């Protein structure tokens, strides 16, 4: 009786232990685990900041949502900072974390050429998780697009103001 109770206790104990000692064949690559345990650049920028571009991709129903934000130096077009928040599996978190690392310090045009295949290779993603890397690529593109749209709108707004000023001044 005691032995059975003891066994049950041990089983309970092993259940509570983190399931990292899973079947070797299905283990996450150590880079994915690293990004999961020590995610880089988690956070949020003020999305109303004109130097910030926000890319929001995915859908909760699908199980993956990524928000990737970039802070751009208006003068040089370089990405000076990036942050992300992701709801999803370990591979999705790692993919977006890698994405924020890779965009920092690069020019906006340059980051558009970051391919999902590179992210997937870097993290040794299994076939079923390739979609996560594609989502990360999409998030980068969406962030850049958002920043450019904001910039264009701002410039259009400024042009209008100068025009009205001219009329007033005339």
């Amino acid at each position, binding site marked *: 009786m005691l032995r059975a109770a003891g066994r049950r206790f041990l089983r309970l104990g092993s259940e509570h232990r983190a399931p990292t000692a899973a079947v070797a064949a299905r283990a996450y690559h150590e880079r994915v685990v690293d990004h999961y345990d020590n995610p880089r650049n988690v*956070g949020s920028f003020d999305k109303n900041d004109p130097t910030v571009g926000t890319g929001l991709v*995915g859908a909760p129903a699908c199980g993956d949502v990524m928000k990737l934000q970039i802070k751009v130096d208006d003068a040089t077009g370089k990405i000076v900072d990036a942050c992300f928040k992701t709801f999803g599996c370990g591979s999705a978190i790692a993919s977006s974390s890698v994405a924020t690392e890779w965009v920092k310090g690069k020019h906006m045009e340059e980051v558009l050429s970051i391919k999902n295949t590179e992210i997937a290779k870097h993290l040794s993603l299994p076939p079923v998780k390739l*979609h996560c890397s594609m989502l990360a690529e999409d998030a980068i593109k*969406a962030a850049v697009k958002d920043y450019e749209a904001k910039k264009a709108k701002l410039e259009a707004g400024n042009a209008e103001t100068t025009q009205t000023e001219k009329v007033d001044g005339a």
Partner: protein
Amino acid sequence: MASRFAPRLFLRRLRMRRRAQPISSLHEASAESAGVIGDRIFSPSGTWSPPDFQCVFRVFFSARPSSLDEGKGPAAIDYPSLLPEEEFHKLADETIHDLLEKFEEYGDAIQIEDYEVDYGNHVLTLKLGSLGTYVINKQTPNRQIWLSSPVSGPSRFDWDAMSKTWVYRRTMANLFQLLEEEVGQLCGQPISLR
């Protein structure tokens, strides 16, 4: 201290609540700043504050009128109205079963080391040994069939009612055609899936 975004238990609860919500709430999603075609996308709305996730969740789904007007990106596709779930399952299951049969026959005909066809939980896995692995599965919320290919990477196919085929909107690739081309080339023997 960087904190992981939203605990899983929370999200599971959220998913259950989400299922109870009417599908019409999804109409409100807009897709202006994200340039993704074929997926559901939302405009960045409001701040993302993990503690009150339910509140954020609603904000996430509701569109701001201003951003809807400004949005020049692809319109959010209301998948439930495009293709009712039942019909989607019927079409997708039929397609995947079809592929399963054809791949099994193909495996019998050719000699590829470690060729294996697996089907479980509506996920079709085609292993071609060292040549790579294909994974084909349903993505019901998006009404899509997702493919992971060792050649072309990930792609998402929507049902095109006009041509009665599955099409990847970004490249206009046809699911069967893509698989025929890739698998045929990888294994060195043509395969007919249509």
